[in-house]
């Protein structure tokens, strides 16, 4: 999987013949086939895992810390109760705080009737309360997601091209505050390489959140607890693992939303194409992007 592009990349890329009318832009190949396939398989897996995961969560919509469940004192709970007028309302409890979340969390509409359920039907797979089928979807998707992730992380460590694409350079670490400021002003540079903030985000998601999802997931399995008891020590117990699994899932949701917004506002077609055909249009200016990065 190693390639020799490190030696030759300073020769690249010059404005492509068909699209250089007045604009100093060139199309480079940004993502290899492996990354592109993984990206879209992952999208399907993560959507199924999230929605079926919410279905499973709804079977007992409460979170705890430690080995077991302190039923009287959950860290988080989605429930329903009656308000002062006797009307049902959905309640979200986080520690000692309670919020009225009627319509979304705790109490939501299903086939016209308000029903007590953790997450609403539109967010779960399948829609109706059906734990057994939620588990089938979840584990089937996990069996695709986890092996792909393992292979992809290995590839990301071994391939020099991937390493260069996702690990921030020393210069990028130094430029991080400026990069963050640029992003906050929605000022985007189209370079062959990811900027420091992008790289940092991908490293955290790839080597942090995604493996955490797999390992905290495995920690909820009683057979895995017997096989690999260290899982319980690492995450502080089965219920802690369940809570971390939940928090990381919403970390991925946050990543997903920011990712979508940035893809949309930083050149949606260019971004989409780079993840479908691999082609990505870069600003060339006077210097090649790799040079631009070095002097940034």
């Amino acid at each position, binding site marked *: 999987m190693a390639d020799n592009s490190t030696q030759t990349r300073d020769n690249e890329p010059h404005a492509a013949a068909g699209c250089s009318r007045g604009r100093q832009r060139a199309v480079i*190949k940004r993502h290899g086939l492996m990354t592109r396939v993984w990206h879209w398989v992952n999208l399907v897996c993560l959507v199924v895992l999230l929605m079926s995961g919410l279905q499973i969560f709804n079977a007992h919509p409460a979170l705890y810390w430690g080995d077991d469940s302190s039923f009287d004192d959950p860290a988080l709970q989605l429930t329903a109760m009656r308000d002062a007028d006797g009307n049902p309302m959905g309640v979200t409890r986080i520690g000692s705080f309670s919020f009225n979340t009627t319509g979304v969390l705790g109490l939501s509409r299903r086939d016209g009737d308000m029903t007590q359920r953790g997450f609403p039907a539109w967010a779960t797979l399948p*829609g109706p309360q059906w734990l*057994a089928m939620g588990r089938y*979807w979840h584990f089937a998707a996990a069996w695709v997601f986890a092996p792909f992730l393992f292979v992809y992380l290995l590839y990301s460590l071994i391939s020099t091209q991937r390493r260069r694409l996702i690990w921030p350079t020393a210069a990028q670490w130094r430029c991080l505050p400026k990069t963050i400021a640029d992003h906050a002003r929605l000022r985007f540079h189209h370079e062959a390489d990811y900027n420091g903030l992008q790289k940092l985000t991908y490293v955290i998601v790839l080597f942090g959140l995604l493996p955490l999802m797999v390992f905290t997931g495995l920690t909820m399995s009683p057979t*895995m607890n*017997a096989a690999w008891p260290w899982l319980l020590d690492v995450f502080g117990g089965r219920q802690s693992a369940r809570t971390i699994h939940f928090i990381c899932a919403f970390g991925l949701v946050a990543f997903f939303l920011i990712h979508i917004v940035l893809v949309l506002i930083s050149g949606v077609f260019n971004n989409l194409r780079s993840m479908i055909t*691999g082609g990505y249009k870069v600003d060339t200016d006077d210097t090649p992007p790799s040079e631009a990065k070095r002097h940034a």
Partner: protein
Amino acid sequence: MRDRKPIQPDPRRRRIITGLGALGASAALTGCDSLSRNDQLQDLLGATDQLTRAAQRLVASRESLAREFDASRIAPTMKPNGTKHPDNPEYQRLAANDFADWRLRIDGLVDRPGEFSLAQLKSMPARTQITRHDCVEGWSCIAQWTGAILADVLDAVQPTAGARFVVFHCADNTYGGPDKYYESLDMVEAYHPQTLLAYGLNGSDLPIENGAPLRLRAERQLGYKMAKYLMHVELVDSFAHIQDGKGGYWEDRGYEWWAGI
């Protein structure tokens, strides 16, 4: 340089990609519920049950133990689930007499079928373990269980070479329905050193709501495997003839036979 070669943008590709994206998104949103009811898809999803079982058997040895906890970790109450008070007259009659007339029948593919009284089971070498009970719903509860080791009981009845599963038949009609609760383990889980026929909870006799007089503890499995109100243990080479043939009350209602995850 193959990976950074300049390429031409193609407007047709743009339209196709946009179209496919929109199609995929709408199919995904509307299709999943009806897909969930499709038998072939259910079979495909169910195949992962076998995969999970094979993989977990690979990483967990026969003897690898579920974690046992310190007495200080025992929960104030062991949350009961499923049936809490079997309402059939036969069970109520046995309970009224403190289960003195209760007998556990063990038969099927065994050389020496027999019946065991509670006193007989209590006279066998006992194991006491403080373990975590994991419900398929997601909650966990730590309690201390005392019982006869199922492996010892099986040794007494001598399963034949053809025995592949141990089926546990229960006294209770779950949720008052027509079907009696039942469950099954394969021989590996049945012979696991922590698999008990438990008659004690937290130092006392097993209460009725937790499965008196005898329940199964299979500590590497989820709670629904651990049948309560045991009446009859049957060794079989297949459970296809029992109720809906999936190996357990909840399995017949769509849950995985392998309850290790």
